[in-house]
């Protein structure tokens, strides 16, 4: 595992947060279920590149982004479809559509690859946004680990509630590994369940930033240095600024 991602931080960062960042960086570098370690690191690199893409800036200003076809400025390692997914999810997530998502699937991208990409993108965004918030340099991305993707497909995954298949609580199998702490896990918990390892990697990181799972529905002690209402007002404002309905 990589070392402290913020070695020069003037702040005393919680040890569980540092551990979660270290684990996330190592996870990104490992071969995934549908992508190699090299491809996963390329996705993380493209996340950082997307923020300065001129086409993305133009798309953000467009009233109907789905009607525009612009060429993203990419690092050149990913396929055009992968680049589009990274850039759109990073720069304009509130205006993604089912038509856009399923268009990539209809054009040949495996659903599992799409889901795994979202996991890597979201983890990279979390780590980089944390660094930005504290004015720290972004963590150095690790070199990829060798190995092939397993292409494991959970037998219980089905497309019903969302644009992409999910494994509903109760439909998981022992081969999936642990997926849900409770049978009432919300849809945000189910989103990456088609790629169980991506889901576990993501939530290990996200939980360290937000709340431990056992505290999510306990509105008393947040276990953090800010109160639960203070946590939720940040959360709600961020969601609104991204036009996120969830």
């Amino acid at each position: 595992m990589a070392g402290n991602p913020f070695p020069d931080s003037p702040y005393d960062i919680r040890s569980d947060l540092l551990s979660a960042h270290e684990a996330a960086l190592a996870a990104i570098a490992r071969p995934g279920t549908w992508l190699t370690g090299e491809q996963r690191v390329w996705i993380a690199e493209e996340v950082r590149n997307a923020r300065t893409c001129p086409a993305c800036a133009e798309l953000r200003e467009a009233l109907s982004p789905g009607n525009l076809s612009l060429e993203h400025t990419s690092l050149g390692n990913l396929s055009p479809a992968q680049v589009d997914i990274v850039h759109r999810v990073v720069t304009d997530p509130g205006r993604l559509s089912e038509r856009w998502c399923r268009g990539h699937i209809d054009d040949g991208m495996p659903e599992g690859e799409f889901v795994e990409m979202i996991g890597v993108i979201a983890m990279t965004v979390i780590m980089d946004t944390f660094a930005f918030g504290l004015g720290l340099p972004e963590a150095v991305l690790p070199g990829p680990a060798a190995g092939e993707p397993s292409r494991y497909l959970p037998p219980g995954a089905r497309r019903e509630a969302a644009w992409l298949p999910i494994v509903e609580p109760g439909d998981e199998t022992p081969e999936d590994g642990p997926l849900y702490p409770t049978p009432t896990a919300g849809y945000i918990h189910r989103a990456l369940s088609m790629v169980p390892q991506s889901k576990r990697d993501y939530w290990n990181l996200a939980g360290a930033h937000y709340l431990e799972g056992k505290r999510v529905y306990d509105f008393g002690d947040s276990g953090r240095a800010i109160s639960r209402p203070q946590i939720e007002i940040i959360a709600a404002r961020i969601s609104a600024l991204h036009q996120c309905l969830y």
Partner: protein
Amino acid sequence: MLRESSNAADSEIDLHDITEGYRHDTDIEHAELLMGFAEAVARRDENGTSAHRQKMLELMGEPATVDAAAIAAAFHGFVRLADAIGIPYEGAAGGTDSTEMRDEIGISDFYRARHA
């Protein structure tokens, strides 16, 4: 979550503050500062983020500042997960968000709601 936690803490919130920005009606300690920080981070405004961070360090301390940055970061991930996978939003907040409330505070004007 915001309403539930505010009820538990006996705090007043005005949900318009969430969709329109702080307007003094929400009674959560340092709400204006925390929302300003959230906005600056979301807009990747380096100067604004730095200014709010310094103020948080002065008024709330270092652990609180680190946790505020962590929460802001977490929700930059959650929104992307929700919006890229297209999970249903009707069940969010335990299904307690009424259509009337969404209309009143402007959530129904969000892109995905208008194009559903």
